[in-house]
């Protein structure tokens, strides 16, 4: 070997490592997405952190956090938020765990009913439900008035923090139900039979085999509920509970002003606790993705219920159904009520509230259609671009782009709203108004918040399109563009449609960021309209009418997304059979 060949041989891997394997189109697409994420997610949230740690004369300081922990109201709010989030998980678990066990492990004639139970709360935004729950379970609500008349006592279900816990648990228990049911029914039946073969039965079997295997699903659901409740602004606000963290941050920013550091300090705490909760769950779950470690056999055997078991199951499912339906029925009654106050049921019924909202404030509806439609479209486009970059190119840093978009999950709407407000308040539109409070910014914030869901849907849709399908088209003479438009996009269409509808529906009922950013009624969407109406006793009827419209919108969209997904699945199964 001669000395002169050595350096070039050693340099080869270096050159290969540094060569960027990307076309200009890929680089441009990545840069555009990066700019969007930086401008509307990273910089605003970073700004919140910077302000929280910056002293009055600039420079790093912890003095604001010192102030926070010296203020009794904040300390109280902190513990209240933790308490409410934890108790919501407990109450939601009390509802969800028995339902999941009945659903996944037993042949129960009411299984379809439980499945419905699991969807109903999701189409009802908790802040819409909150008002209805006051009317049904509040101090002077239907239930307590009847209890008072018949038995002479009340149940303080809706008093203070109890009300928040009750409303949140009823709204979020489906997350635990769905995750736990899925992981229970994913357990290979041989896992249980192996236990029986070695001498375990009944409760021992449940304790040693079944529950530990289902734990990952439960924890995933429970941590999600914890974080969602901990971060939520709208529900406590509508129930007039302000001694919690999110309402405190909102009140500081809106009443004391954008310059007050406390709103930012609280925002940082919200983000940190959320991240700790999610990271903690992820840490416990590490290496425990049991579903992928099992093979063969179907799900756990569903066994028939004894007559006693059946009776017990029904006597649990029926009350839960009534509880879950209460906000739906309540909001419907309220929207149709002439007057409903201090009585179990409304005094009379009218359609006037619907006429009012359609005549006087139709912009709430049209605004929501416009903003959320645009946001959904932005999500689908960005989602497809990132998915394509990650799965189909070798662009350096593509995984980082994916991670950045997904990190929006850890950012509460309130925090993003505050960050956007702080960053863009001084940027003026041509008409002199602030960019931060314009409808454009609201649309962008909706898009950023829902992007993770759309991104996952787009990634899943693109993964379904096997690379060989594209190669077959290229082999038969189709160029990159033809392949994309004739093969890839049509095959992804179903998944993308579902992603759009989901983004649209969830954005339509987002209130946390909306409350911070919306200032004028003319620019405001449906969720803001409901909130504003609900602030006054006279506005409750029209507010409820808007609420019913919102619930119907979400329900229709959810159903549509479900149908699209089902159609895709059955199509794929047909194709799978054809090729098998």
């Amino acid at each position, binding site marked *: 070997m001669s000395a002169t060949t050595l350096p070039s041989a050693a340099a080869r891997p270096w050159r290969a490592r540094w060569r960027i394997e990307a076309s200009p189109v890929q680089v441009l697409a990545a840069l555009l997405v990066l700019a969007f994420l930086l401008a509307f997610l990273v910089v605003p949230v970073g700004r919140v952190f910077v302000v929280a740690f910056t002293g009055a004369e600039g420079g790093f300081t912890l003095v604001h956090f010192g102030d926070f922990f010296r203020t009794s109201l904040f300390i109280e709010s902190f513990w209240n938020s933790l308490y409410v989030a934890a108790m919501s998980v407990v109450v939601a678990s009390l509802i969800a765990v028995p339902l999941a066990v009945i659903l996944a492990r037993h042949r129960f004639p009411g299984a379809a009913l439980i499945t419905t139970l699991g969807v109903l709360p999701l189409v009802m935004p908790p802040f819409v439900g909150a008002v209805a729950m006051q009317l049904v379970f509040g101090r002077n609500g239907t239930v307590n008035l009847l209890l008072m008349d018949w038995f002479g006592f009340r149940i303080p279900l809706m008093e203070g923090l109890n009300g928040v816990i009750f409303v949140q648990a009823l709204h979020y228990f489906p997350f635990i139900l769905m995750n736990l049911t899925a992981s229970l029914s994913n357990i*290979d039946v*041989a*896992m249980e*039979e*192996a*236990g*029986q*073969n*070695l*001498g*375990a*039965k009944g409760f*021992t079997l449940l304790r*040693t*085999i079944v529950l*530990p*295997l289902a*734990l990952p699903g439960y924890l995933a659901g429970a941590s999600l509920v914890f974080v969602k409740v901990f971060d939520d602004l709208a529900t406590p606000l509508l129930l007039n509970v302000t001694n919690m963290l999110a309402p405190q941050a909102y009140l500081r920013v809106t009443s004391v002003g954008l310059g007050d550091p406390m709103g930012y300090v609280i925002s940082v705490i919200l983000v940190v606790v959320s991240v700790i909760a999610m990271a903690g769950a992820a840490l416990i779950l590490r*290496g*425990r993705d*049991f579903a992928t*470690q*099992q*093979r*063969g*056999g179907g799900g756990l055997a569903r066994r028939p219920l004894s007559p006693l078991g059946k009776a017990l199951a029904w006597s649990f499912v029926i009350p839960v159904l009534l509880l879950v339906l209460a906000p739906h029925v309540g909001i419907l009654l309220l929207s149709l009520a002439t007057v409903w106050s201090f009585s179990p049921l409304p005094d009379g019924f009218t359609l006037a509230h619907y006429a009012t909202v359609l005549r006087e404030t139709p912009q709430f509806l049209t605004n929501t259609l416009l903003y959320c439609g645009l946001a959904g479209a932005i999500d689908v486009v960005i989602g497809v671009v990132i998915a394509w970059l990650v799965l189909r190119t070798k662009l350096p840093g593509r995984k980082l782009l994916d991670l950045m978009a997904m990190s929006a999950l850890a950012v509460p709407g309130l925090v993003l709203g505050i960050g956007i407000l702080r960053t863009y308040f001084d940027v003026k539109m041509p008409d002199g108004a602030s960019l931060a409070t314009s409808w454009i910014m609201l649309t962008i914030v909706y898009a950023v918040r829902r992007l993770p869901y759309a991104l996952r849907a787009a990634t899943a849709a693109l993964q379904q399109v096997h690379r060989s399908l594209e190669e077959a088209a290229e082999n038969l003479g189709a160029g990159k563009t033809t392949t994309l438009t004739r093969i890839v996009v049509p095959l992804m269409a179903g998944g993308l449609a579902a992603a759009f509808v989901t983004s649209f529906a969830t954005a339509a009922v987002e209130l946390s960021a909306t409350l911070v950013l919306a200032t004028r009624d003319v620019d405001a969407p449906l969720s803001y309209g409901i909130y504003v109406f609900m602030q006054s006793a006279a506005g409750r009827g029209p507010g409820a009418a808007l609420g019913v419209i919102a619930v119907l919108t979400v329900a229709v969209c959810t159903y549509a997304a479900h149908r699209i997904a089902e159609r895709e699945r059955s199509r794929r199964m047909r194709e799978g059979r054809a090729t098998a």
Partner: protein
Amino acid sequence: MSAGVEIERVSFGYGATRVLEDVSLTIRKGEFFAFLGPSGSGKTTLLRLIAGFGMPDSGRILIGGRDATRQAPWARNVGLVFQSYALWPHMTVAQNVAFGLERRRVPRAEREQRVKAALELVGLAHLMDRRPAQLSGGQQQRVAIARTLAIEPEVLLLDEPLSNLDAGLRAGVRAELVELQRRLGLTTILVTHDQEEANAAADRMAVLDEGRVLQVGSPAELYDHPANRFVAGFLGTANLIDGEVTSDGFRAGGIALPVHAGATPGRATLALRPQALSLLRDGAGSLPARVVRAEFLGGHVRYTLEAGQGIRLIAEEPHLRGLQPLPPGAPVGVAVDPAQTTLLRH
């Protein structure tokens, strides 16, 4: 310790679907027995009934002479190794193996020692603290076997134990299983659809099809003396020719084949192993035929021949260097050894 299993006239079904029809079998104490059959033959169902997963609609199952038909799975001392191994991913290897001993309230010290012994038996004592996901497929299977052996079962049941292993591993693992079984003298029942697996491992086996036991015997007995068309065709390759036994041999499609002396005349099916046919390149032999197709398989060449009026025969010729396979259309002579023929009556 080890015990025999008696299956007495067991029938089983799901609703209108019959899975097992009047099955009777005796598995002797200490023997390696195989249930062999195609998928849907009911072999796995029968194994699961022995383990207590499901109850026969009629009939009895006796383990070590005692009636276990209505005994719950956890009350029997029968070890089942699942096809998927069913190792619990949330427990370590040692915890998996200790599980059955904990249920039997074995004191801690003895338990630890028995866990270690069971794992040493399969050569995995050094992986005690791993999780199943950290093991290879072959190691997982050994853990599954150790977990079952730790409870010192009366019978060991193996459900398709080799099907989840790479093809290259199977022969080795099979030999280890047999060696282990011999060493322990433990009654073992293997379920498989692979005749080679059953032939190589089992002392005796039962061939099942559509929920019925068709024949029971040692692998060589079943191969040499199949009782019917199905057994003849399922175990190895067989030429099955429908025809009639006459005073001067077996006649079918214009050809005559020799059968052993004293065969009763009448309609029958003649079963002929490919190696019972000798191919004579010089055209001699009792039966003239024509080559339809030749497949070169390395050690031998498999010929499809045609004789008489469309009678197809499969014959094998050992391959030696320099010997060219015969081309299609080439005439050959075939000689049949009557001692190698089996007559199947309908």
